[in-house]
């Protein structure tokens, strides 16, 4: 899959931009703070509906403007679809609207038109970071490929927020109402847990293969899904029952501590190297190689599941890696259809079929294709 056009109006430092990215590798080169990452961010918004940076949606609107708009043309096999996202200031908050083929659609229907795999320097801490960051990684990847996952996750999170508020507000919460939320948590939670389980299994296979090829020392990378609530069989009914029974077990403690205590919002993804947890025992180099393998695996699994190669968005990450790892990463995803890379300097060796863009004070200029 690829993006054939990207149009911005009043997004970050861009007043107006109309860009025609190429198949293959698109490299944005420029000094810092010229707008390279903003381009990748805009493409990510067309994929996942939100930024990969932290911060508020309002920050994406150009200073002094009321409304920012990102539009693009996504091409998938024979199909071609116009997608767009508008962010409009609305008092102190913002409102986002999504379009697909010229019609306003809900976020759930917008998702999946353009699938992206992003890789930014912060991802290098994925293995050592918080479980929340690893769950966000799983959620972003799964929501793009699986509409049912996104739906179940939204239900789950909505019920969890209500249950949290109920427990927090009242030392003696309504039992029947708690039971209503617990029922939704168990039903939606089961869908979330099963999708995560099968996704992590697929990730683990691909990551182990990629890792073995690179590490050379015969170290074995193992990824394991660590659900907060254990279950016996990987069926919806079994997981639902396990969640429901665990929620009953912790109900008393939840009321005492006034917070929800069990369920997939406490899941984790664990990485071990030869059986030892990478987060505690790995060297920085080992941790980085593991993240690289995880990202390659994310790309490959998403490609194999949908039959379409997702866009690769590599923001400032290749320069963070030594040349050996950077080459290994690009080799690992070798057959990408379209990738975007930002860099402060022209990379020494570019693959054939690369397009070079110079980014300078929100102006983007094509340098013509280069062959190596």
């Amino acid at each position, binding site marked *: 899959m690829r993006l054939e056009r990207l149009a911005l109006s009043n997004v970050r430092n861009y007043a107006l931009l109309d860009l025609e990215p190429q198949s293959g590798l698109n490299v944005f080169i420029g000094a810092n703070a010229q707008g390279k990452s903003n381009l990748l961010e805009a493409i990510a918004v067309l994929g996942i509906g939100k930024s990969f940076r932290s911060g508020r949606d309002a920050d994406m609107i150009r200073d002094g403007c009321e409304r920012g708009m990102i539009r693009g043309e996504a091409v998938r096999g024979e199909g071609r679809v116009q997608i767009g996202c508008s962010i409009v200031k609305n008092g102190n908050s913002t409102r986002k609207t999504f379009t697909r083929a010229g019609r306003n659609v809900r976020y*759930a229907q917008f998702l999946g038109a353009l699938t992206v795999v992003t890789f930014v320097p912060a991802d290098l801490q994925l293995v050592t970071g918080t479980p929340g960051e690893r769950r966000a990684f799983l959620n972003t990847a799964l929501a793009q490929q699986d509409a049912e996952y996104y739906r179940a996750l939204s239900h789950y999170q909505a019920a969890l*927020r209500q249950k949290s508020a109920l427990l927090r*507000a009242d030392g003696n919460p309504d039992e029947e109402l708690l039971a209503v939320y617990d029922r939704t948590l168990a039903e939606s939670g089961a869908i979330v847990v099963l999708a995560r389980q099968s996704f992590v299994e697929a990730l683990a296979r691909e990551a182990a293969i990629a890792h073995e090829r690179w590490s050379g020392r015969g170290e074995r990378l193992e990824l394991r899904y660590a659900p907060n609530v254990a279950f016996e069989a990987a069926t919806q009914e079994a997981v639902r029952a396990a969640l429901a029974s665990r929620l009953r077990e912790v109900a008393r403690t939840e009321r005492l501590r006034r917070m929800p205590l069990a369920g997939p919002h406490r899941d984790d993804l664990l990485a071990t190297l030869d059986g030892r947890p990478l987060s505690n025992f790995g060297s920085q180099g080992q941790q980085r190689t593991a993240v690289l393998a995880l990202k390659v695996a994310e790309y490959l699994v998403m490609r194999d599941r949908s039959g379409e190669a997702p866009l690769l968005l590599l923001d400032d990450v290749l320069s963070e890696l030594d040349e050996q790892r950077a080459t290994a990463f690009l080799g690992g995803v070798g057959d990408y259809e379209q990738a975007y890379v930002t860099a402060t300097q022209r990379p020494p060796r570019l693959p054939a079929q690369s397009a070079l863009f110079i980014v300078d004070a929100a102006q983007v200029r094509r340098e013509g294709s280069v062959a190596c």
Partner: protein
Amino acid sequence: MPSPGTIAGPLQALIDEFAKFPTIGPKTAARLAFYLLSRPRHEAQALAEAILGMKDKVRFCSVCFALTQDDPCDLCTDERRESAICVVAEAKDVYAIERTGSYKGRYHVLGGLISPIDGIGPGQLRIRELNDRIGVEHPNEIIIATNPNSEGEATALYLSRVIAPLGVAVTRLAYGLPIGGDLDYADEITLSKSLEGRTALS
């Protein structure tokens, strides 16, 4: 648009009042005020009386909490109406269902949906009143007609849990495709709910 100070005080006062309405900005407010200024006095008087009459006479029915002039309301006192009770979130929902003309039962307005985030628990809604009515009126069915969003769903589930022990049948409005719609344009959630709730052709 006239700037403040150039407009006669009473006219500006009316513009300011209109501008407080939802979806009405200062320009539309001025247009409405100038329109009224151009109409004969009796039309303005009819409008003023309609507004005051509405404020003075419309109230909530003490039985079903729909909007009414007489208490209890016509819907509650109509002997021909069936015993079923249709439970809705807001008074305006009563009119949506009445417009269909195909429901012949009674109503009960909850006054909102359960949402602890917004500080609305079952105690803030008219659920106890619904329980009392079930004990008095012995309806043959409770039809829950809350919106199909997460608060509406939670409220429906909650009601079914607290009502079911009273021995009355509890049903929920079906989810489905809009009539005259197009399968292509239906979102996946609606479509899959419609599949789950499919009915036999006979």
